[in-house]
């Protein structure tokens, strides 16, 4: 008679402990962001005197000020264009290559894949100077295309790795069925592999969007004028000037951090859905 009660209360205690654990970690995740946003709504004098999490007055004009002072306008658009272009390109290029490495047999396949993996492990700090010289020789230096191609390369290894791991585990039957139906290899890739790969696709999108959105040094070096600069470059200049004007600084940081958080929130349900579904992994 005791036993069920014992197990049930043990389960409840365990579950509550787990929840407390999870909630505390979740709070530490959100807390700094909350601070950032709240600080951006205060003014320089009140920011240290008023340490409550809910400001007395909402100084939304800080955002306008930060936007103007940082010249964020055009740069925001540039960052969006670069991010979208690079993500699209990488998804196509890396899934094509990963599918080939996983499912198609051709000479040198293993060697090429090893090279990509090795590249993942060997960073080249200071590569931006080398890329500068390279783009210069290719006459692609002061162009968006040059920058986009460089950024595509940055995420290539990891994306190929993620896709290949997924394709390896994909059940053959679906592909065989498609092949019997007369699908070409490209067709299988397009109609079968890619749609199934939605969760990995979401991870690849988020990962690369991250990299491109947060990048600044390559852009700063290879572009000749402010016209093509992404948002992070404007943020750097902005932060250098306002690093101790905390409300403005936090407003600027929020402006640059918000879009990528939104992208993540949009994508995460695909990641979660795919990860939760058991059918693919069997």
């Amino acid at each position, binding site marked *: 008679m005791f036993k069920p009660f014992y197990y049930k209360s043990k389960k409840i205690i365990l579950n509550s402990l787990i929840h407390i654990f999870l909630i505390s970690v979740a709070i530490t995740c959100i807390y700094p962001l909350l601070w950032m946003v709240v600080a951006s709504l205060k003014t320089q004098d009140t920011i240290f005197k008023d340490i409550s999490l809910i400001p007395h007055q909402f100084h939304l004009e800080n955002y306008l000020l930060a936007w103007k002072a940082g010249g964020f306008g055009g740069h925001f658009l540039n960052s969006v264009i670069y991010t979208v272009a690079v993500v699209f390109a990488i998804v196509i290029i890396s899934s094509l290559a990963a599918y080939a490495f996983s499912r198609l047999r051709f000479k040198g396949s293993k060697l090429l894949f090893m090279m990509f993996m090795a590249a993942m492990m060997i960073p080249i700090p200071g590569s931006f100077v080398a890329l*500068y010289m390279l783009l*210069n020789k290719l006459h692609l230096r002061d162009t968006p*295309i040059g920058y986009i191609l460089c950024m595509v390369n940055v995420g290539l290894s990891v994306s190929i790795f993620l896709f290949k791991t997924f394709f390896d585990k994909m059940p053959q039957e679906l592909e065989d069925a498609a092949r019997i139906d007369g699908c070409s290899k490209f067709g299988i890739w397009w109609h079968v592999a890619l749609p199934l790969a939605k969760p990995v696709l979401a991870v690849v999108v988020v990962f690369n969007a991250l990299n491109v959105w947060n990048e600044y040094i390559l852009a*700063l070096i290879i572009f*000749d004028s402010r016209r093509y600069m992404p948002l992070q470059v404007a943020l750097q*200049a902005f932060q*250098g*000037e306002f*690093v101790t004007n905390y409300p403005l600084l936090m407003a600027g940081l929020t402006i640059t951090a918000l879009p990528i958080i939104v992208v993540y929130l949009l994508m995460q349900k695909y990641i979660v859905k795919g990860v939760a579904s058991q059918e693919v992994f069997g």
Partner: protein
Amino acid sequence: MFFRYVLLGIFVLFSALGCSGQKVVSKPSVTIWHWMTDRDAAFQELAKKYETLTGVKVNFELYAPSDAYAQKIRAAAQGTNLPDVFGILGEKRDFAAFIKADHILDLTPYMEVNNAAWKNSFFPKALAVNEFTVGNSYGISSGVYGVPVDILTIQMVYNKKLFSQLGLDPNQPPKTLDEFLQIGPKIQAAGLQGLVSGWGEVWMIDCLANDYAFNIMGKDKVLATIKGEIAYTDPDWIKVFTVFKQMQESGILAKGLVTMINKSAEQLFANEKAVFAFNGSWCVNVYQGMNPSLEYAAMLPPQVSDKYPMSIWGGAGSSFMVNARSKNKDEAVKFLIWLTDQDQQAYLSKATNNLPANKNSLAKIPEVLAQFARGMDYATHPNVWGVSEFSTVIEAFDRGIQSIVIGEKTPGEVAAEVQEIKDRELAKKRVK
């Protein structure tokens, strides 16, 4: 199906972006890359003015922070894509390297024209930083290769109000190191911070250390040390290191000084949390923006010995060079002549609270700024010494002082370490 249209759209987008063809420029223009975040607005104003005057468009482009700017310039130099006008944020030997690579226009002919009219409009010390003298150790033929757009000195400032609070005479700043150190305990007792400065950025430490070195042993001995004739383990140098130890022990230094970036130090001084600051004359503009009601004055670093005068760093603040390969060289030079003319210098001085490089621009400058200007008499700068120390030695020197300030090493230890690296470098027989 829909996806295919999206792909097509992306291709179109790609090609549209890729086809950034050459813009046909009808009238001459001058492109200037700079790093001065606080002066961008003033520069843009002047650019507009110049365009209405002469019809020549001047593009000021700001790239910050200064480290990234320096990288950008070096990369551009490699690709011979430098803009018409730019600055080199580096040491004299970097300057020399740029000249040797034919990136920099020799401005001497322009300077000497009309009985050296342009040359003489500058404070001599401002020009000296941009000049290579006859027989210099860098192997550059003598001449002027850059244009100063302002001058600065790096001194100490103190908060007058806090002085009164501490029971000190606000018009009598400490003149000797002992007087200075004695204030330490008072500051600690009052719960304030003492000296703040951007010592997380090591060059400021280097600056103050050199000031004391000149004061303790005189310019000649310092230069002799750089040349390798005297060791850093010499008792005079140990005295220099000991100054920092004494400062740390007396409590006159602020908490966390070694991790401070200059902007944080400026904030602390402006918020009246710190009694002293070691900063450059650009701080006048910064403090004004942070706290217009701040009452403060400038002072020389309190001296250790009276055998040699106290010296401070001063000279050209920011300088511009002209790209020797530029297609708009002459227009660029013409603009720089206009920019450093007394009216424009007065305007810049007023708008940005920086000292003018043109000695005729005796505009109404704030009293504090005038105090900084008076310090020019004591000013020197590494770029005019004619010799450069090895960068590894400088790094060990600065880091060593940081270690002394945080109580990690003793002056003797640091001196030995620095000399060890110096010996190693000399052995490599690299002559700069």
